[in-house]
């Protein structure tokens, strides 16, 4: 009797396809993986239908790698279906893990996204003001599109997730070691992030060039100066997210002379990467007075987008407050302002 190969599914939600790219980037190693497993769903590469998955027994798929955040009904439905049919679900990449770049949409609203995308973008020509509808008719036939949610959610805010592979995208070496661990059953406890527990600064090749007492007097954005390829970015006044980012990426950005942007998410013990980065980076400012502190803060062009680049949906606040109707004016304001 031939031993059944374990079934594996790859699925993408709100993502860019870079995570699929990283699987392809396994190069020759992908053939070993393909030999060892039986791929049952991979929309980006192979032609399977959803009903093939629906026909499987619960728990039939050994492991589902799901990348991307959750924003539409289709993503929600298929990820739930895969959860039901899979033994293990792995959140693959930043978007599934912490919300990722699509998660930045939580700093705006659904309404604004639609307005920009379908009316106001300079490249859009839409004289009739057409906006996609969930239900419409095309040549008299009903067409249904997935509903677009008000907010972006991480995968584990929607379904139960067993393991996380961080990164934007996860580097092939990390993917290979994670897949090998899964195939060999050498896994840490459920809920682990399959990457080292250290912060990036700990493993950074430029670590020795960071002084005891860094003082940033002017912040430079990466495109404004040519960074010294040897010296710590923070030392040069370039914001680098190393202090509050998990390592395991192989320092590819640093070695490419670009600062870390935080895609591996927070190291263990940190709930809110953006807040931790604000604490870490601001402590390096050379500012003794309130005015100097405000001037330094002003130089950070987009604090939320810089420090929460990959983590808005999983942060403590999670999304921008949707402006509600103004409060009724019956507030108890009987005390004089002191």
């Amino acid at each position: 009797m031939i031993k059944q190969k374990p079934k594996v599914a790859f699925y993408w939600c709100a993502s860019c396809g870079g995570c699929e790219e990283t699987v392809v980037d396994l190069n020759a190693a992908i053939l070993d993986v393909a030999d060892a497993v039986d791929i049952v769903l991979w929309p980006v590469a192979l032609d399977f239908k959803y009903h093939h998955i629906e026909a499987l027994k619960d728990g039939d798929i050994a492991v589902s790698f799901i990348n991307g955040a959750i924003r539409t009904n289709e993503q929600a439905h298929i990820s739930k279906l895969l959860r039901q049919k899979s033994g293990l679900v792995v959140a693959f990449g930043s978007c599934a893990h912490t919300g990722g770049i699509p998660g930045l949409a939580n700093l705006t609203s659904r309404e604004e996204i639609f307005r920009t995308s379908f009316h106001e973008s300079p490249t859009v020509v839409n004289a009739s003001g057409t906006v996609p509808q969930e239900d419409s008719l095309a040549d008299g036939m009903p067409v249904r599109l997935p509903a677009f949610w008000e907010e972006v959610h991480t995968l584990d805010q929607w379904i139960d997730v067993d393991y996380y592979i961080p990164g934007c995208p996860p580097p092939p070496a990390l993917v290979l070691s994670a897949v090998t661990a899964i195939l060999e059953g050498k896994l840490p406890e459920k809920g682990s992030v399959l990457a080292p527990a250290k912060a990036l600064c700990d493993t950074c090749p430029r670590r020795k060039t960071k002084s005891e007492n860094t003082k940033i007097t002017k912040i430079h954005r990466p495109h404004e100066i040519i960074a010294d390829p040897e010296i710590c970015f923070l030392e040069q006044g370039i914001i680098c997210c190393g202090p509050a980012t998990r390592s395991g990426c192989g320092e590819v950005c640093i070695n490419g002379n670009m600062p870390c942007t935080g895609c591996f998410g927070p190291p263990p013990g940190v709930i809110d990467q953006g807040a931790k980065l604000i604490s870490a980076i601001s402590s390096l400012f050379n500012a003794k007075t309130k005015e100097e502190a405000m001037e330094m803060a002003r130089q950070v062009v987009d604090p939320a987008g810089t420090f929460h680049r990959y983590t808005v949906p999983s942060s403590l606040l999670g999304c921008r407050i949707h402006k509600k109707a103004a409060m009724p004016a019956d507030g108890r304001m009987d005390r004089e302002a002191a």
Partner: protein
Amino acid sequence: MGAVPASLLAPAAPLRLGISPITNFGWRFRRCSVTDVKLLTFVCNWCSYGGADTAGGLKLECPPGVRLVRVMCSGRVDAQLILEGFRSGADGVLVLGCHPGDCHYKEGNYVAQKRAPLLARMLEQFGIERERFRIDWVSAGEGERFSKVVNAMYDNVARLGPLELVDRKVEGSMR
């Protein structure tokens, strides 16, 4: 996330400060009415906590919705704590420390001072108005000043009303 001790629920009359509840994070605040706002106030052990105590000794009025949390230093109030305060139900967060130059740990309040404007800018991007987060200095002897700073901040927050943070639970979620 334990229950709030009864002594911490907003009483109807203004509190006379004197005994400060020393609390930790993890309790959920409860709203008593729509117009009742909670002002989470971090006071440093060496100056502002004494200032709050002095205000109590002077029998000065303080708003009912103030929640004091004593910390060793204003520099210890990490940005995570402030966000967690908002997430736990605070409508405003006030951090009080020693005056510049008076820090018990020499530079802790400078660290807090550098952190504040950057965090305030990020809070605005999340739709939290600038008046809901402030940092100020109160020394141990400044009971009057404590009362003034806290009342002014409380009134600003009350004018804005409760902070309606978005509940992040999704309907139909398997979690």
